[in-house]
């Protein structure tokens, strides 16, 4: 487990993702608020968050004068600063997050936000993509679906091969690995 965590941290770091280790959901929510404030953002979209966590986030945001957006996020296409989502899996070999993105709200939040923050328990880190084959195939076989591998922030090198991040998707990707207590 240590090893996978280290590898995940290293590989995600290589593609400019910011990786940190947290110990609780409470810490995740605080981070989301702090980072949003630090970047001068005003809004957080948190699709798929458990009701009690969402409630807690709303309280924290209220105190910090931030808005937690309510779905559907199609009505906020231009106004999402931070997307806070869980990730289903992480792939250590390439520093990749795997998200079942069937929900349109989740897609909009993770694609149109300025900063995407994703959290997952460290037990959900696998060594490589084939390790997820069974899960992926099952998803693909169960009707319409949209699955995403996300490795670092949106990037391009289309002008003079100079690397620039944030061309279409989020400009920053934060990965919060939750250690079980």
């Amino acid at each position, binding site marked *: 487990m240590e090893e996978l965590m280290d590898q995940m941290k290293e590989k995600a770091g290589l593609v400019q993702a910011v990786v940190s280790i947290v110990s609780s959901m409470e810490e995740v929510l605080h981070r989301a608020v702090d980072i949003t404030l630090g970047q001068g953002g005003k809004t957080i979209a948190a699709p798929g968050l458990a009701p009690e966590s969402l409630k807690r986030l709303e309280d924290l945001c209220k105190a910090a004068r931030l808005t937690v957006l309510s779905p559907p996020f199609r009505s906020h296409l231009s106004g999402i600063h931070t997307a806070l989502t869980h990730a289903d899996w992480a792939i250590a070999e*390439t520093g*990749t997050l795997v998200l079942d993105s069937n929900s349109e709200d989740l*897609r*909009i939040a993770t694609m149109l936000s300025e900063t995407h923050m994703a959290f997952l328990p460290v037990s959900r880190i696998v060594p490589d*993509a084939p390790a997820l084959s069974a899960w992926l195939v099952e998803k693909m076989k169960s009707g319409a679906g949209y*699955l995403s591998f996300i490795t670092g922030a949106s990037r*391009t090198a289309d002008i003079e091969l100079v690397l620039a991040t944030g061309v279409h998707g989020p400009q920053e990707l934060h990965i919060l690995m939750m250690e079980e207590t």
Partner: protein
Amino acid sequence: MIQTAKDMKTYRKKIKAALKNKFLRKALDNFASAYKVSRAKAFEGIDLDALKDEIAQGKDEALTQIESLFLRFKAGAEAAGAIVHLAKTAEEANEIIAKIGKDNGVKTMVKSKSMTAEETHLNDLLEARGFTVTETDLGEWIIQLRHEGPSHMVMPAIHLSRWQVGTLFSDVTKKPVDLEDIDRMVKVARKELRLAFLTADMGISGANLAIAETGTLGIISNEGNARLTTTLPRVHVALVGLEKLVPDLAAALRIIKILPKNATGQALTSYVTWITGAVECGASATGKKILRIVFLDNGRLELARDPVFSEAIRCIRCGACSNVCPVYGKVGGHTLGHVYIGAIGLILTYFYHGKDNARAIVKNCLNCQACKSVCPVNIDLPFLIKKVYANILKDEGKKPAKNTVLSAVMKNRRLFHTLLRMASALQKPLVQKDTGVLRHLPFIFGKSHDFRTLPALAKTPFRDQWPALRPRIQNPRFRVALFGGCVVDFVSPEQAIALVRLLSAHKVQMEYPLGQSCCGLPAMMMAEEETAAEVAVQNLEALEPWRYDYILVLCASCGSHMKEGYSRLLAGKPKQAGKLHQLQDKLMDFSSFMVNVLKVKPEDFIQNQRRTAYHSPCHLCRGLGVTQEPRELLRTVGLDYAPCKDEDVCCGFGGSYSLEFPEISAEILGQKLDHVEAAGAEVLVTDCPGCVLQLRGGMNKRNSRIQVRHIAEIVADNLKTP
């Protein structure tokens, strides 16, 4: 729009113009250097050859069942709410897509990058039908605004400078743009294109993979535009080449594992998106995305059945064959391709865009094998390029006069050698006595050929000197035959004479079977396969390989052609199989023989530590796979081997290539010589007489003091005389 030269005269003009573009050359050169490093790093710890074999084999299996894979895909995708079409031609695909737009009341469209849509010229038709189409990949958007085609399959705007892009953006946005600040330019695109995404009715994407088992599309992207294209608009149309079908997820993951690494040296793209069927979509009246998947045939099914060319559609569009191509590095993709670019482009253009567009560009291959060595699906690109050239000659029904003459002469060894002897006598007035090079080039060569001196033909070819030279060794350690090849025999016999000396000193009995002729590679380069096959048989008969322990070559090109090319040429001649195997088993390059068989020792050589640069001939390092032995040999025989940049990049000779495209050959050579000079070498060594000819000619023209020697010569120089 894309304008590809349809005849050589126009093409030469285009090449000259491209060579004047200094920015382009520098950009491509920087990329080529960085690519090599990052690619190697990306594949660290991966058994690349095994992965390539596995993917190539999987692709071949998939291609034989492409129709059933399509039906499986269709069933899976349609069960999940998509509608799947199959278009026979490019026009049909475009019409289907335009109709989907019309039927759904679409006005505006956003598009993520798709080479397949470039292939069908989709935008042209959609715009003619009144749709507004916006490309959203940054590079594609830039070239759309400039009304040109991509110059690289992965990096479409690699030919443009930040100043060109900045000026373009400032024109489009009517706002000033800082011409140095690339980060800002990217943000301009983000802002402008975000607007297009938010208002588009339809998104058009390609797909890198289509998984038959589940009816799932796989799309890779770095910018995230493919995700937005497939999410925001209510209609999504994916245009997919039939060759993108794979049976299952495992096959798809294998391709994902190799594609970004081989394309740009990235471990994985920022995004990999897997879409199955019609997902939730708030912009659509039904709450479900309208998903249409249009598969494109456009000749693919026929190509998949072709016994020779089918391997071309294994291509996964990584663009690596451009990245490593020395010609691409000099002229760029607008000159080395039509829609598809680089080595694979020279092949696919013929099948997808017709012989008129392929006619000129297909000749622009050095046969240096660099593309073949990086191809992730083992396509023998240089071979197929020659095959396409042969097809075009056949289609057009008239061969260039030089082909007819070459074939007639080469099939008859005596005639060929008589003509060479006559030429040697006739050139006398042209030869500079002290240097042995031609004083001026014969009038048939224009000024563009003046980048190197050309050596005169030898006064006496090696074969005529041989009877007097032939040593008789008592109790020899080995008996070997030399296959000389035309250049050694008729231009540079001194290289063979050096070998005679070295072998005698090491108690090896050498023979020079006089029935041997040209190896036949020049005929292959001119797509004269039948002649090449005939010459191959003549050489097998002449060499009588069973008589010797080894057959040595001083020319890597002859060697690799005999080792690999002969198998293909003689596949239909089972009577030759035994001899051929013997020949191929016994064939060895000079350095490998000295190092691995004779195991030469430093004490037999004068250790003068001359600073020596090495050029690794294409057909030695890639053709025969020999890389370590020559370098080890240089050290053993007392030379100070000074590594220089890009030792394994072609010298630009390529046999008749340098006569067909002298300007490009000169550029490639110039860069090579610059690297050698930068290494501070006194002497440049290589193990192919063709490379010697090119490199020495170039150094002469520079009046450089750096000598160019065949490795056999310099090893013989340093041999201590008993």
